[in-house]
């Protein structure tokens, strides 16, 4: 079995031929073009733009780190956006995880009708990002919306307008995010099914209670899945856009209480045409996401249980 000087491992029974290399790059061509033209090139360009005052028209004048300095020291709306976004992430991600895990564990008890419930709980994840659901949310949490009607009918309680009140508007968006716990739940369900049943049987024989089994078997063995879900949900939460945009008419209001980072970025880029400044904002977001992801991976070894 010859390897003809390549570093790749040959597959059993196969061998390398020059034609394969040609074919390889042939099949990879669309992706390679896309990678250079739509990913790598633009990524470099956006870093360059972040050091300029580019507006989309005319020349991009070099301003050095000025955009970044302004972000850090002289842009109150940036800090508002950070505050809103971090509140959103830190509330929605853990709540989503807890709900997803709780429902997955409840569904994993050999109930018949599992696929029915799984489908129902998944549905909000599928439609939750749409404009239609954002429209619906606007009505449900309006002053005379569904929620307040229900509260009034059931308890005689006159609720405020949750959407137009700056102290509650963000929480309606958190609720909208948590409502979409279904896709994480599906991943948890798949994870739960990987846990060998005999572990529970052995634990039962040893007299371990259900709660103890959950904390000593289910939870530790599920940590890789929890970790995975947490990383994905965090990245997604930082990128949330549509619901805030539609619910606040693109403003991030009332009084910037739903000014998600991506919404602020959108306004700077496509309403104010500050492409240079928006590029700097984009890179700050990328760095924040990269930081969170790196931190999760670094701390993973202290709490994520891997089989070896």
């Amino acid at each position, binding site marked *: 079995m010859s390897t003809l000087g390549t570093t790749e491992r040959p597959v059993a029974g196969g061998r390398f031929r020059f034609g394969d290399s040609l*074919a390889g790059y042939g099949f990879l061509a669309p992706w390679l073009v896309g990678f250079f033209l739509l990913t790598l090139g633009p990524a470099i360009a956006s870093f360059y733009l972040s050091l300029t005052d580019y507006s989309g028209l005319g020349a991009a004048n070099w301003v050095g780190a000025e955009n970044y300095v302004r972000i850090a020291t002289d842009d109150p709306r940036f800090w508002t956006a950070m505050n809103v976004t971090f509140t959103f992430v830190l509330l929605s991600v853990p709540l989503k995880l807890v709900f997803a895990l709780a429902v997955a564990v409840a569904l994993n008890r*050999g109930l018949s009708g599992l696929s029915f419930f799984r489908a*129902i709980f998944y549905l909000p994840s*599928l439609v939750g990002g749409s404009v239609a659901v954002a429209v619906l949310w606007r009505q449900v949490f309006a002053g005379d919306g569904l929620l307040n009607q229900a509260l009034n009918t059931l308890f005689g309680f006159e609720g405020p307008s949750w959407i137009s009140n700056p102290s509650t508007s963000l929480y309606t968006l958190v609720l909208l995010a948590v409502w979409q716990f279904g896709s994480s739940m599906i991943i948890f369900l798949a994870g739960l099914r990987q846990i060998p049943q005999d572990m529970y049987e052995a634990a039962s024989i040893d007299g371990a209670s259900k709660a103890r089994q959950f904390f000593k078997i289910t939870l530790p063995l599920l940590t890789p899945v929890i970790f995975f879900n947490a990383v994905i949900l965090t990245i*997604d939460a930082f990128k949330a856009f549509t619901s805030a945009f539609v619910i606040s008419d693109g403003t991030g209001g009332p009084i910037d209480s739903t000014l998600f980072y991506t919404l602020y970025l959108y306004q700077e880029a496509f309403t104010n045409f500050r492409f240079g400044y928006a590029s700097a904002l984009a890179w700050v977001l990328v760095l924040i996401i990269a930081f969170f992801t790196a931190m999760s991976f670094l701390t993973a070894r202290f709490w994520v249980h891997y089989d070896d």
Partner: protein
Amino acid sequence: MTDAALSTTTIAARTDAGEPSVSPWKRALLYALLLAVSFLMLYPLLWMVASSFKPDSEIFTSTGLVPTDLTVDAYRRGWNGLSIGFGWMFFNSLVISLLVVVGNLFSCSMAAYAFTRLHFKGRGFWFTLMLGTLMMPQHAVLIPQYVMFLKLGWVNSILPLVVPKFLAIDAFFIFLMVQFFRGIPRELDEAAIMDGCGPLRIFLKVILPLSTPVLATAAVFSFIWTWDDFFAPLIYLNDIEKYTAQLGLRTFVDSTGTSDWGSLFAMSTLTVLPIFILFILFQRLLIEGIATTGMKR
């Protein structure tokens, strides 16, 4: 990511197992709880659909699901509520979504085939880069991409929404297909080689025909996400006659404000209807797709 790449077969296989010896009472309680939670979760959606058939006066007075007086008035008002009919915008959405499906299937299956079946120098390197792009937020490339499409004269056309998909920009689908292609026995390739097939014939005659499940999953997800997408059309489409249904709906919200919830709900219902239908037809594929790769919504 490796640990979450869970096998799909286990999902289907174990519907009857689970933890043994749950007492009947507990079981009934669990059912009741699950039913209550699912009902509560679905209620807003059901209410939206029901309200779209109610006379306008009833939307703010009735929390129930049954209209006293069934009417499609709201649909009639909404359908022609903008200067361009919603029908046209649904057509735009449909064209874009279908082109994206074709683009993703074409380009991502080619890349996945190269990554799993062909041997060439640098394969591992490109594969790692591809996985890296999965993690990268689109915001990093958004503005230069926009500027590039602007210079090409593509802004205010569907090209920026469609052409990148023919260049395998959705690495998620490459990943999904790589996972699947890896499961196709290599003996089949080798038999085809014996018969004198080249890489292209193997791709077309062996790999693709065996990959209908993953191609279908990718197609359905592509369609739904493109149909639902708001951000890209918002940036790239300016003229109302080029709008997608999502953009149309949001413009409709702006123009009616909160004065005509009936027709807003009617049009909202219509924009999610295709997703509901695909969900009902393909829920198994969707759920398995989520469970295998664990990515995205």
